[in-house]
């Protein structure tokens, strides 16, 4: 661990952190402020739901969800899909710049010419990624909980704490994957393309699994299948399987990243 690298990584990304936080706060506030209106007009929502086909509901991550609960509503409108892609874009961009992007722009050469080991660099930048990801998750739950107080929405604090924790592990699984790709590549753009491509492929696989029994097995291989913010908020629970899958992915990709970065040429 190098404090100098940790601090510098967060300083270099502070503007993007502010913009992503601003976007999340604005969107979160808007959705929470909108919820009382939905809650008071559930009969119209039921009509509204019948307008959409099952396929459309699956595409928006709304299959089988109840709009009338806070968790269901937030999942359909925000946390189920849009939030995942916003936060994924943030952590993937961070991870891409941390290793492969730094090799590409030459700043890795500057860093590695100093008395610091590759393991230290990779470990510290991963910790900075974790802090960045944690900050985004904190902003997410804070900008659901606080507007809830203002707009009379009963947002469970323990549900937010649980959402923060599992959201953080999910974003580290996504960020960890991008970090491993970044450790293997010599460019940030390639890392972003590969990581977002894999995430988009997972989403497509999940949609396919939700609309066709024939492809139901595909869902098993996607992060979206295990990401259930509605259950976290409404039932205050996260399946052990979800913790395990996200957690193991985050750890395995981190180990792969360190191993690959120690072995590669920095050029």
């Amino acid at each position, binding site marked *: 661990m190098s404090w100098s690298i940790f601090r510098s990584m967060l300083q270099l990304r502070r503007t993007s952190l502010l913009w992503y936080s601003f976007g999340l706060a604005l969107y979160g506030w808007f959705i929470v402020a909108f919820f009382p209106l939905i809650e008071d007009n559930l009969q119209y929502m039921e009509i509204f739901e019948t307008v959409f086909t099952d396929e459309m509901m699956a595409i928006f991550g709304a299959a089988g969800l109840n709009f009338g609960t806070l968790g269901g509503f937030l999942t359909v409108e925000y946390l189920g899909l849009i939030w995942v892609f916003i936060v994924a874009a943030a952590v993937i961009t961070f991870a891409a710049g941390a290793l492969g992007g730094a090799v590409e722009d*030459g700043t890795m050469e500057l860093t*590695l010419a*100093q*008395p610091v080991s590759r393991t230290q660099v990779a470990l510290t930048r991963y910790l900075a990624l974790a802090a960045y990801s944690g900050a985004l998750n904190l902003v997410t739950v804070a900008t659901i909980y606080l507007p809830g107080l203002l707009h009379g929405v009963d947002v469970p604090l323990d549900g937010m704490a649980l959402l923060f924790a599992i959201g953080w592990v999910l974003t580290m699984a996504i960020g960890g994957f991008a970090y491993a790709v970044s450790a293997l590549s010599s460019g940030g753009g390639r890392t972003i393309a590969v990581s977002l491509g894999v995430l988009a492929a997972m989403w497509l696989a999940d949609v396919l699994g939700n609309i066709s029994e024939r492809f139901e097995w595909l869902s098993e291989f996607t992060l979206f299948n295990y990401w259930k913010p509605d259950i976290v908020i409404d039932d205050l629970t996260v399946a052990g399987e979800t913790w395990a899958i996200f957690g193991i992915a985050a750890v395995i990709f981190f180990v792969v990243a360190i191993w690959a970065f120690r072995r590669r040429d920095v050029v």
Partner: protein
Amino acid sequence: MSATVIRCDKLTKYYGKSRGIEDLTFEVRPGQVYGFLGPNGAGKTTTIRCLLSMLRPTSGRAFLFDEEVGVDGRELRRRIGYVPGDVKLFEKQTGRWTLDYIAGLRGGPGPAEAEICERLEFDPSRRVKELSKGNKQKLALVIALMHEPELLMLDEPTSGLDPLNQQVVFDILEERVAEGATVFLSSHILPEVERVCERVAIIRDGRVVAEESVDDLLSKAIRTVHVTYAEPVPDIFVDGLRGVSSVERLGDNGLRATVSEEIGDTLLGILARPVADITVEHASLEEVFLQYYGHGEREGGAS
């Protein structure tokens, strides 16, 4: 004290199938200023990057301060200051931020930072992206020099600097060497190399083609002899001169000969007739360098 500061033993690096360096063997002793010469693509930067653990050699070994260079040679790099051939910095940050970042990695501010900034007239308060190429180069030099390392690995250290600042850099290097530092210098500015280096390696197509002291290299190199005889000399005399690589008549009384072997015997032959004037020009390092390289062979390959 280490017997050698840098040692390469059959160091080889291939990028896939393309050659970077091949069987590179040389050593640099403490306190030496060692010139590492070669055109673009000869393998100079590859060698430096292998020494700094940025690249993993395909085969062979590299040593710094008698310790084999591994992938995590952080303690070795504490003793090294490095200026890359193509300076890349954190563009959106200031010079001050960059110096503090490096100070953080090195465990504290560089004791010579203020002095080097002042001598190079470098203002660290500006953003890197606003700096000219020369000022970026100055920042790279401050980074390399501010912690007063034992070994300076400098890849084109004066690139982009005006002649006055080039002079300042070489003055600083000479002072550092007088204090016991070792300098490994890759440069295209051959008169400067000739001035400051005591030993050089010339690298071509990834291999060392000459490695000796600058004096020895120059003494073996081509010299040009201009002679004006006291009276006209016949062609048969000129054609019979031994040890000359080429000879050109300058009127009836004069000639210009290039000599690439031992000059003594050749001079005895030239002086066999009464001479009015004679001058011997030593080859510069640049001319020696060009002996190893044709003008058309100066690009391509690894950097």
